[in-house]
């Protein structure tokens, strides 16, 4: 089996990133936005791991950063879910468009 090379992985990463960003920009459901954020983070992770595999000077750093992003994503999810829960308790909805009490 031949090596695929770096480019397909980067394309996958870019595709995931675009999906995630689109998800954040279009969803009104807070949980949906959270899922978009996870997609964006994982797109970055794919890039990190791929670079760790194919770029010699990046071998260690790529993997370390991937682990870091996983931990970060977990923490972010926990906090975001807590915020969403509180928001739901106060507004009986998870529609982010309703979260505009502080607008200018």
């Amino acid at each position, binding site marked *: 089996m031949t090596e695929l090379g770096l480019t397909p992985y980067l394309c996958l990463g870019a595709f995931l990133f675009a999906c995630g960003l689109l998800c*954040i920009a*279009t969803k009104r459901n807070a949980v949906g936005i959270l899922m978009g954020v996870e997609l964006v983070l994982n797109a970055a992770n794919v890039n990190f791991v791929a670079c760790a595999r194919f770029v010699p000077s990046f071998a260690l750093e790529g993997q370390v950063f991937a682990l870091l992003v996983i931990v970060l994503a977990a923490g972010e999810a926990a906090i975001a879910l807590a915020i969403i829960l509180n928001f739901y308790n106060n507004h009986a909805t998870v529609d982010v468009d309703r979260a505009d009490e502080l607008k200018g």
Partner: protein
Amino acid sequence: MVSWLLATPGRLYVVATLLPLAACALLLVGGCLRGVCRPYRESHPIARFLYFFLGGHRPLRSGAYLATGAMALSAALAIFGLVRYLDEYQTLSPLEMHQHWVESTTWAKVETSGATAMTLEIGYRVDHLTALMFAMVAFVSTMIFVFSIGYMADETEELHEDHEAHITRPGRFGRFFLYLSLFCFSMLNLVIADNLFQVFISWELVGVCSFFLIGFYHERPSAAFAANKAFIVNRVGDAGFLIGLAIIWSQFGTFNIERIISDLAGGDPPISHGLLVAAGIGLFLGCVGKSAQFPLHTWLPDAMEGPTPVSALIHAATMVAAGVYLVGRCFPIFTPEVRLIIAYTGGITLFLAATIALVQTDIKRVLAYSTVSQLGFMMLALGVGGWVAGLLHLLTHAFFKALLFLGSGSVILGCHHEQDLMNMGGLRRRMPVTAYTMLIGVLAISGTPFLSGWYSKDMILSNAMGFGLQNREHMVLFILPLLTAGMTAFYMFRLWFLAFAGEPRGLEAEHAHESPGVMTVPLIVLAVFSVCVAWGWPLWDPHASYLGHLLEKALPGPAHGLAIDDSTHSSGWLALVVAASGFGLALLMYGTRTIDPTVWKARAGALYTFLREKWHFDELYDAVFVRPAVALGYGTARFDKRAVPPEQADAADRAVNVSSLDGVLNALGLGTMFFGARLRGAQSGLIRRYVTVLMAAAVALVAVLVVVYVGS
């Protein structure tokens, strides 16, 4: 600890300097804690405990004991250090002495382009002058701290009634000792400093302590005014000091006094003569302000608004002497031209102040003008090259002037805050200890043989006469102090006779009472020192004073134009005759009343009013400086603000008018408000809009980067 101290015994002085600071810090922390705990004393047990532990509703007396104890320990260390220094001076070589008694450390590095790094240092340098001055300051301070415990006792009340400001306020016992301790730290630091920058810092610190303490009764308008006056007048002098420091820093690259002097003594000084004169005048201007010399003398008599122990410590014995001390320290920096200025400033000051003191009736003001006059004596002595004489007078004066001021404090307290000499009289029967200790002070300051003042004043006059004989055109520098010696005897005995002799002339004097022991013991101790501090053998030779001989060893080199004595002792005899006639006149006018003072007052007429109004200096300065400054202030305010009726005030605040400062500032403010209101809409609260903007911005940024990179 002890071995660490004794290995470098100069560190004794550092410890002695820091002790009052530690007391000050403890008092500050205690006072703050008490204030913090006060609102919670009912609700919280810890706050309650702390609040009542720290004195509760009344100021804590033990704060004063703490400050006094720290000061006493400091004085003990100072005297131990003095003894050890004199001991080592006999046995050790100069190099070893330098290792033992001089130390400094880098504080901040100041790089300059090209040249080597210049550093600001902090350090100490102990020589005979430092050791003696330090011991004097610490000792006199201790006496005054003890006296203050008695004098300020009414500040320990929970609610103290101020009869002059007509208000009732909490007592401020702890605060008084806090300020005093801070002052002592600053003063001691000034004395041991080995460089001019450290001197300057301490100089400002003692100035601000003086401001706090003059304004201690700040509810009284007169006290607040006097505090401001002292501070502002001192700023004038300090501006000169700063200029002097700047010249020295730029030319020598160091503030270390010893190094500056050795640089100057070398064959090729790194400074031009003109700049050296300018630096000398600048430094001296600082001393003029601090030591209340003409023309900046007007603040000192007003400083008597502070509590009397403050007048004794700061405005008589120590702080005002700092100017003289600095002139003595930096003596070789002053060129002959500057020394002549110093001598004439001293000469004018001593004469002027003495003439004013002749007619004042407030007991503290007489003493204040006599202080100004005596400081003039010291400056004159230094100016004519009488280095030892000037500094000896500084030391002896500190003792008898502290004694006189504390005596006046005792009188004021005994007479229930009556300060007018005309309402006193006959107090010697009611307060004998105060009366006779003060008599010793009066005798000492008048130059009575065998009392400390005689030795130093005789040396000053002898040096002045030597200078006058050598430079006949400056003979006036001998005649002025000679006349003033007579006036000194007159006004001091006038004070004593008016206060203590005869019969009571006022209700308060009739009901006067002797002060408690905590106040009379310092008087007695200071009286003993006022008699014998300058003694030497043989007793009748003023030039044999042991203290003078000690000072001689600190002389900053022989080649600096020091004065020659007149060899005939005629100045001493002349001074004695003049002083005796001053005493005789005072005795006739106020003792036996053979000459009626009121007749002479009427005969003097305009001259009496002129002296009584202090040569109209206050009015002159008021017209020349104060009023134009106030007018300028009002003018500037008018430029900023026009009088508008209240209903139009809002419209006036919004008026945009580029022809006035106010209008320009209004335009600025309105413009900011306008753009702020527009920008506000951007914060819509819609996450989707934020993300869209974010994406667009990122794309735009990438596009710009691509264009730039492809383009290049």
